[in-house]
């Protein structure tokens, strides 16, 4: 075949495009009604580390009437060869062009991947804009966290799925299968899908802008379509299908391990965090389920590392017992257990100690802000004592390298908060010295990102700190932290700026994306590809001002471009949280039983689910 024999030998890392991995599902094309392509708008190594892909792949392929195949963004060297050889973007399993599928489902994990969706559609020979595609083309759908503000992508995506996908994907495929049988037009089919809770079809909504150019309102153009689309949420996380036969890549990817999701949601309530809001309520898997799934994964994958994933695994009620049981059961077979994220406290270090019996990489803590005042503003429930206890314990236990995550540009930030970052970093360094770690070995890495206000958070009304000020803040921090053993990393402030524009953007940004794509923007999450000048040019060509989007301070009463997406909790709660933030008042964890009143449980008829904490069952 041309692709395999003639093209792959010419590109870097051809295994990205070859397919044939363990557990990949190859169905007989002719025997299946519905063909779905899962499209991840980044390279193979990133996409194959994404649990959501494996979840949906497992669910769709378990249907006798459907198949799901995978496609990733080809690296530019491959794209060039594909154009040269007139090869249309294809899936890994059947190597068929995307055009042959009924549905192409993109995941929206981060705003900077939006340009890659246009890049992939173009490589597939599929018209970019939804109105340019008739029923002959696949339905282009999207889900994932960025679908909670879908408007910037609304020109290109036929249908968004809001919230958790495990159940809605089946309902959607049933409707699409029915539509295919009845030969419905694209419009008829799309209208039909709006009956499914959680489905948002942007072409049935009209956006109105005020005379000042600001977003005014978004309203349905068809009376049968809901005014607000409520997110989907899985009630029983214990029973929901989980991928126990995930595809195991044959080449090295970002995360080379088994993933077990131990809980969904997070109750900590950090005010900048979108994931902590949109994945509410917290739902924990039962201990027995985790152990059972782990044993199956070990058998089915051959990996030697098992990761307990979630937004905050150290919060998982039976975490200690589960880790102990997993280590007892699998350590003899060379399988280690890992935790992706840690809270900054002694408990977490004890957990880390438990899991890292063999390998000692660095430990990461995320205090996020440099002073207690600012940590109270963002509701990051970590104190300086917690951090010092955690770092001290880590050094005593033999870790020599500690990473600290901070954010700059947070609302109400002052110079004292920046000083606080370098003070904390130095104190952690001093702790390491006191613990007797040799000078050459001791390493404290401070990773500093820039605050991006996100839709559906308490800080959604807040402006981003201007680009120039962020650069100054970065320079100020660099000037202070020159100690040996201390390393400072920054996220590119330009990337954060574009991220902020899209995170709170409206439908007009579709024009910007079109222009940016025409100017060659792609792989914007990769520093070697991100080009701020091109983006600024795209805004100019589209006649829109990015600063207006990123730096705008909204009033509580202002209509917001994402108001029609209902995340379950109330906007009033967010406003309350915002006020409390400005007053420096913290809000408790709803896990403890004291309900902060976000309104979600009542609205979605759901309750937080905590697993039993008994040590041994």
């Amino acid at each position, binding site marked *: 075949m*041309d692709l*395999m*024999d*003639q093209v*792959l*030998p010419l590109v870097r890392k*051809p*295994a990205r*495009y*070859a*397919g*044939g*991995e*363990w557990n*990949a599902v190859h169905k007989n094309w002719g025997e299946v009604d519905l063909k779905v392509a899962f499209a991840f708008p980044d390279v193979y190594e990133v996409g194959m580390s994404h649990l959501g892909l494996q979840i949906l792949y497992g669910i769709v392929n378990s249907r006798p009437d459907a198949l799901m195949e995978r496609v990733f963004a080809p690296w530019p060297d491959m794209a060039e060869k594909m154009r040269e050889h007139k090869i249309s973007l294809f899936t890994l399993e059947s190597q068929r062009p995307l055009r042959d599928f009924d549905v192409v489902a993109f995941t929206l994990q981060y705003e900077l991947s939006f340009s890659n969706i246009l890049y992939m559609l173009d490589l597939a020979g599929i018209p970019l804009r939804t109105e340019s595609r008739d029923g002959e083309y696949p339905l282009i759908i999207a889900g994932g966290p960025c679908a909670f503000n879908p408007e910037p992508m609304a020109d290109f995506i036929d249908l968004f799925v809001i919230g958790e996908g495990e159940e809605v994907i089946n309902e959607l495929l049933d409707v699409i299968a029915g539509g295919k049988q009845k030969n419905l037009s694209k419009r008829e089919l799309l209208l039909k899908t709006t009956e499914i809770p959680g489905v948002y079809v942007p072409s049935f909504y009209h956006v109105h802008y005020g005379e000042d150019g600001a977003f005014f309102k978004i309203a349905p153009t068809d009376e049968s379509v809901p005014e607000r689309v409520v997110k989907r949420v899985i009630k029983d996380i214990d029973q929901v299908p989980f991928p126990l036969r995930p595809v*195991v890549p*044959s*080449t*090295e990817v970002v995360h*080379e391990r088994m993933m077990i999701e131990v809980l969904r949601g997070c109750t900590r309530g950090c005010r900048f965090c979108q994931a902590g809001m949109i994945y509410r309520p917290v739902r924990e898997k039962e201990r027995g389920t985790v152990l059972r799934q782990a044993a199956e994964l*070990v*058998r*089915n*994958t*051959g*990996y*030697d590392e098992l990761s307990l994933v979630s937004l905050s695994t150290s919060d998982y009620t039976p975490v200690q017992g589960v880790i102990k049981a997993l280590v007892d059961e699998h350590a003899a*077979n*060379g399988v280690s257990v890992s935790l992706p994220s840690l809270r900054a406290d002694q408990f977490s270090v004890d957990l880390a100690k438990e899991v890292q019996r*063999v*390998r000692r990489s660095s430990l990461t803590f995320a205090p996020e802000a440099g002073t207690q005042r600012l940590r109270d503003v963002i509701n990051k429930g970590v104190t300086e004592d917690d951090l010092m206890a955690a770092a001290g314990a880590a050094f005593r236990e033999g870790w020599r390298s500690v990473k600290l995550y901070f954010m700059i540009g947070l609302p109400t930030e002052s110079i004292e908060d920046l000083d606080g970052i370098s003070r904390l970093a130095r104190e952690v360094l001093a702790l390491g010295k006191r613990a007797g770690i040799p000078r050459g070995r001791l390493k404290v890495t401070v990773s500093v990102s820039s605050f991006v206000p996100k839709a559906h958070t308490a800080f959604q009304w807040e402006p981003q700190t201007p680009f120039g000020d962020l650069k100054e803040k970065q320079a100020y921090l660099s000037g202070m932290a020159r100690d040996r053993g201390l390393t400072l990393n920054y996220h590119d402030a330009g990337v954060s700026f574009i991220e902020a524009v899209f995170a709170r953007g409206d439908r007009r940004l579709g024009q910007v994306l079109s222009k940016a794509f025409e100017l060659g923007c792609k792989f914007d999450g990769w520093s070697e590809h991100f080009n701020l000048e091109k983006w600024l040019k795209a805004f100019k060509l589209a006649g829109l001002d990015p600063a207006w989007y990123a730096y705008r301070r909204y009033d509580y009463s202002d209509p917001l471009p994402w108001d029609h997406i209902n995340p379950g909790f109330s906007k009033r709660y967010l406003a309350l949280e915002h006020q409390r933030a400005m007053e420096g008042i913290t809000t408790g964890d709803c896990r403890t039983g004291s309900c902060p009143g976000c309104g979600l449980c009542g609205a979605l008829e759901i309750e937080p689910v905590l697993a039993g904490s008994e040590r041994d069952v």
Partner: protein
Amino acid sequence: MFRYRVIYAKEGPARYISHLDLLRVFDRAARRAGLPVAYTQGFNPHPKMSFAAPLSVGTEGEAEFADMELTRDIPVADMESALAGSMPQGLRLIGVSKAPEAAPALMAMVDRATYSARARLASPLQNEELAKAIEVFLARPQIIVERRGKAGEKKLYDIKPGIFAMSGSVNNDIIVIKADIKTGSSGNVRFEELLAAFLEESLLPLQGRFVLARTGLLFKRS
């Protein structure tokens, strides 16, 4: 420790598994097969497996060799059936045999390899013309190829002493070239560079690229 010799084919999508990734792929396959793989001691234990000779990414392997150490003595037939059902698409198990523990490393035993290359012709070519072109090519006193040194500097290298045989055939519009060349730590000849050197001189009317396969690995006589 118990040492096993695994013979396998590397075809289809598995041709694009790099030599570096192959160890990981075999390790996982063996774990899925439930085999008691032996690991090295130390900070980062890795499976005790070794491969006869690296195969270029994209080249098919018709009969490749790997040695694998297990901590328990497993009947060869059991190992064969377990492993055969655990390999990703394109890695096809041909057979397993026991290797004496004292046997030298596979890498040290392999001496020569046979290859074949296949391509479509853009215009007709006679078998005699091809044979003549190969004869002229092999008659050169030296066959110089360019290689990159460790520091990226260009080096010239004569591959002629490492070419033991070379032949070609044309069947309709398909051309096949075969070669028997030196493989191993010293005097190694890469089939791609041999082909490139030949093509440079003979200007064959190809349509597309050659598709390569290593058809066999030859062991030193001991």
